[in-house]
């Protein structure tokens, strides 16, 4: 009945051979004890591994995409293979025939966003158009755009309310400031990334390679605009709401444990289209374009309007500007005119 190996510690090693022989009762007990301990050990191991029960083999990538080089070092063939792999994986898990593209920055184009604080009325169409376009998780909810309601005369986003919504907007005496990734020219987020999973591209868009990201969330802590989001769980998107027009560095589906953020809809804008948030905005408060083109709307705005750079003092040099309209004297307002 004795298990020599398991009992070694008890009989031999413990008292240097000088121990009295153990009574039979003792050895049975120690055997039972050992069995229970080993059993508990295996059970604990099993319990620790139990999340594997939920592992969806369909969602796991093939070895190719796990053992590849950094995005910037991939050859055209390697990219093609990788994207085909991702498309197949999307088909397996969503039953959707998506196309994963890789539009490149357009030479001579640097994107800039401008947002008219005099016009935004806080309706949040942008927020949800963005979720839809960029395949953000619906549950738990991930939104790139955060609209902050603040009393007119104050300017403190930290104490503004971004959960407003029970009352009609615009609420008298309040203004609304949508915030999203500012695509900084001097981005703190890319500098803190320990694995170079996020970088700034030639047209000014800061991108993330979701396959390279290790989920340390340093970038989230570094961002002064609260623009980066983390996938705490597997993102959940209804298959019929998946936007099949995807790009590798922007709106392809993410997985648990990676960061994501606004990419100025590069899958659209690098093909000349407008970002989804702009198209959905009913008030026309959102403006987007090429700052290197002097006739573009954003160039006109930067030349002619009063501009606000959010947290200018932190030196991030954002490519996202807020502006105001001048408002002449209003005939029906006492005192004016």
């Amino acid at each position, binding site marked *: 009945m004795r298990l020599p190996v398991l009992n070694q510690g008890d009989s031999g090693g413990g008292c240097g051979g000088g121990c009295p022989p153990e009574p039979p009762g003792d050895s049975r007990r120690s055997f039972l004890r050992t069995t229970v301990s080993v*059993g508990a050990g295996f*059970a604990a191991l099993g319990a620790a591994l139990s999340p594997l029960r939920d592992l969806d083999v369909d969602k796991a990538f093939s070895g190719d995409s796990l053992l590849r080089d950094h995005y910037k070092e991939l050859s055209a063939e390697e990219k093609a293979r990788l994207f085909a792999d991702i498309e197949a994986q999307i088909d397996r898990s969503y039953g959707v025939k998506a196309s994963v593209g890789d539009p490149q920055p357009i030479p001579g184009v640097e994107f800039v966003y401008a947002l008219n604080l005099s016009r935004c009325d806080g309706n949040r169409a942008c927020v949800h158009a963005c979720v839809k376009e960029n395949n953000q998780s619906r549950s738990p909810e*991930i939104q790139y755009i955060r609209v902050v309601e603040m009393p007119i005369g104050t300017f403190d986003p930290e104490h503004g309310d971004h959960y407003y*919504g029970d009352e*009609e907007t615009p609420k008298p005496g309040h203004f609304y400031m949508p915030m999203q990734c500012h695509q900084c020219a001097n981005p703190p987020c890319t500098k803190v990334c320990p694995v170079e999973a996020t970088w700034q591209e030639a047209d000014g868009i800061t991108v993330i390679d979701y396959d390279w990201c290790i989920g340390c969330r340093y970038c989230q802590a570094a961002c002064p605009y609260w623009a980066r989001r983390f996938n705490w769980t597997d993102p959940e998107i209804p298959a019929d709401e998946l936007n099949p027009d995807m790009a590798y560095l922007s709106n392809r589906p993410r997985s648990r444990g990676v960061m994501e953020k606004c990419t100025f809809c590069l899958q659209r804008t690098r093909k000349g289209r*407008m970002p989804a948030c702009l198209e959905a905005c009913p008030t026309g408060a959102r403006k987007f374009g090429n700052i290197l083109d002097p006739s573009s709307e954003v160039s006109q705005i930067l030349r002619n309007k009063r501009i606000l750079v959010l947290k200018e003092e932190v030196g991030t040099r954002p490519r996202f500007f807020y502006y105001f309209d001048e408002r002449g004297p209003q005939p*029906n307002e006492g005192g004016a005119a």
Partner: protein
Amino acid sequence: MSNRPFEVVISWGIPLVLLALAAVMFWSPIELDDPIPAPVHVDRMSLGAHPVRVAMHDPAAIEVASFDVNCNQCHALFEHDSINPPGLTRHNDIVMNHGENSWCFSCHDIEQRQRLALTAGETVGYDEVPRLCGKCHGPTWRDWQRGTHGKTVGSWKTGDERQRRLSCTECHDPHSPAFAAGIPLPGPNTIRMGKHGAHGDDGVHRPLAQWMHHIIDDAHSDGTDH
């Protein structure tokens, strides 16, 4: 051998407790409250690039008994130039709420209803509404021409054929031009998006504050709202 009972408790107790814990983790009989709220449903139709309203084009017409009738088809039949028509027998669906600008003929041409009136007898068609508005709203018209008021959709590239700039009347009702207030689309609904110090004016980070807030709100309102 004096601490025997203690040893027994240790050597049997700990593995048994561990076994029990492992069983709990494996079969999870306890229903844990899921802090992930259910997804919100948003009318996806409202998220496209649709203009706020459908504007009129040349030749201007209104629907009369389900036929499209041009303004002139009626207005050529009679001469009518009441200075300020209160209680019209027709067009009484029109509600003027344009500040002091309540006179029909500051916009509609008095002779030709198919046209809009600029200054000094000059007229434009309904396709050129911005010029009409521009005669009174100079700065806004200038902004619109530069693209800083209103909206350009389709493409950001100057000269791209997909590019289209919305006309004033695709956003503003000319008779009642102010934007209506409305209930916004749903806000963030996750405990993980709390911004730093969202609910603590004392500067303390309480990521769960919003979550608690909801529970308390729901308890007060018997869960009837949202």
